């Protein structure tokens, strides 16, 4: 009987579980099911309150306050356990040298003002920047400002500490233990390879750029206000000439000239690819006529292509699509054959 009545109670979660509950008979209707479930629920809640009210209670304003025990059912966490921070560079150094942390006072006695002043922050004791007179040393150069020098040194110190802090945070971020309120953001894209030195602009380059800017205006930089000491623009005037909008079409037609110039340039550049078919045909015909006339009067050797100095075909002898068939041609026959071998 006792084993049957074992209800698992977890007070930490206010949870009760009855693993032995079953329906004696399948419930006939919905209401039966509900009442049966409520009965089981009541039994379980009673078991929890039995345990709860027997805990030692302290009196609070609203009523008895009870300290809950730790829950027995384990539930998964929602986030990972906080990772320990890796030691900073200073901490590692201090550990290796055995340097102990010393407790510093927040306020210190200031002799000059006879008061307690902060050791850091606004209105602090022994502030480096508040000194009114700095005595000159023998090693000082004349004309150097010791106050400015002190400021510079402080700036350098601050930069160094910031750099060290960044390095420490980067180390922590590598392990995954960055503090929750800190984010590291990249300010510039990483430069692969060696870091490029910043380019120094020469006087000439600067002048060129200034000139460019000046002539970019519509009036070509003629009416720009000049700074004292600025020299005149090197290539003054407009760099582009626009043709008039309306012009007659005659001999001096500049637009026609322009387009003709462009066309001739194009043709000249690509002339080796262009085949002037009509010209090739007429050249071929003329050559053939000439050869035919010559063939009647000359020996074969002179005109054989094999004895020519280069052995190259003559310039006009291109294979013409309009080539006449040689068979049964009027100039056929004869032992020697003239012209290139096709």
């Amino acid at each position, binding site marked *: 009987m006792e084993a049957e009545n074992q209800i698992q109670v977890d007070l930490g979660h206010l949870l009760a579980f009855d*693993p032995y509950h079953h329906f004696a008979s399948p419930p006939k209707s919905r209401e039966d099911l509900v009442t049966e479930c409520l009965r089981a629920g009541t039994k379980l*809640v009673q078991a929890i309150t039995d345990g709860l009210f027997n805990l030692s209670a302290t009196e609070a304003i609203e009523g008895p306050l009870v300290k809950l025990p730790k829950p027995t059912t384990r539930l998964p966490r929602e986030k990972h356990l906080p990772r320990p921070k890796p030691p900073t560079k200073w901490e590692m150094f201090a550990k290796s040298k055995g340097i102990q942390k010393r407790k510093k006072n927040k306020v210190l006695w200031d002799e000059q003002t006879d008061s307690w002043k902060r050791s850091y922050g606004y209105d602090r004791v022994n502030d480096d920047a508040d000194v009114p007179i700095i005595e000159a040393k023998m090693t000082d150069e004349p004309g150097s400002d010791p106050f400015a020098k002190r400021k510079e040194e402080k700036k350098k110190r601050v930069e160094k500490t910031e750099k060290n802090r960044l390095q420490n*945070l980067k180390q922590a971020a590598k392990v995954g233990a960055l503090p929750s309120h800190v984010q*590291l*953001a990249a300010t*510039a894209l990483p430069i692969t390879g060696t870091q490029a030195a910043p380019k120094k602009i020469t006087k000439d380059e600067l002048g060129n750029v200034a000139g460019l800017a000046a002539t970019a205006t519509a009036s070509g930089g003629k009416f720009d206000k000049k700074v004292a000491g600025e020299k005149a623009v090197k290539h003054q005037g407009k760099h582009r000439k626009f043709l008039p909008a309306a012009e007659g079409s005659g001999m001096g037609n500049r637009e026609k000239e322009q387009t003709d110039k462009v066309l001739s340039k194009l043709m000249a550049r690509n002339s080796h690819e262009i085949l002037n078919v009509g010209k090739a045909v007429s050249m071929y015909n003329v050559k053939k006529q000439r050869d035919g006339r010559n063939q009647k009067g000359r020996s074969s050797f002179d005109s054989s292509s094999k004895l020519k100095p280069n052995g190259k075909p003559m310039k006009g002898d291109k294979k013409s699509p309009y080539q006449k068939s040689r068979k049964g041609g009027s100039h056929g026959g004869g032992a020697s054959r003239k012209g290139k071998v096709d």
Partner: protein
Amino acid sequence: MMKINTPKKKRVLRELEKRAPKLVETGKKTLILQGLKTSNVLNSVLKEIYHLKRDSAVRYTRKNDNIRPFESGGETSLEFFSQKTDCSIFVYGNTSKKRPDNIIIGRTYDHQIYDLVEVGVENFKPMESFKYDKKLAPQVGSKPFITFAGEGFESIDELKHLKEVLLDLFRGEVVESLSLVGLDRVYVITAVSSDRVFLTHCAVRLKKSGSVVPRIELVEVGPSMDLVVRRHRLPNESLRKEAMRISTDGLKKKIKNVVGDSIQGKVGKIYMPDQKVSSSGILDRVVTYCQVLNTKLFW
């Protein structure tokens, strides 16, 4: 080149610290959202769950069509929302012909999906349909009793998983001490068959009984529904091990003001309040006493 960004406002700093991982966790926030198609039943179910968990839940009312938790690519949206709202349990409702009135309850670990349970809702009765004495109505945010009854919760895998997920969903804030006056609600969950679970929300009435322990009476107030388990996905072993880790560092209490245990033994400092010796008149009395002594000695 890197830059250190710290929040410029204290409010932002407080929010960030709330979201940072803690040694002992104090309760998960719930995200309630829906898919492309929802039925009336589903709408009211999601609304009621939101009302039950008012302070620790976020409800999204827009339709999301790219959330498919059981598919490998369909979890990215959920993980993004979990990151954005800092919620580690989500309740996603969707209706389709194959799975009518479907709810997927899932948990996340480190904003990655940890496990999922898919249940169908049947025989849903909303809060308005229950008639009861208004004085018994449970308060928002009170810590509930949670009861499970049925052998199925121990023997069947899906029901065991569902039990764990429902416990995580319904338990309130994790607190160390509890006021016994504020116990007013209970979730009664019964395993009806091998895949069906009956869930109802009741108010608790503590009645006088002979002993210190009061007699319990349950009154049904809240939504009641049948949950039919459809699919579930358990977490993979390594993730489960990592999520269940407990750290013992935080359990040691920090003892202040005690130093030097080795040779001297325990040494502590006692701080006395400022004894105003000069103004209390004791010095005058001492002086007078010495004068009297002096006169007595020399005379």
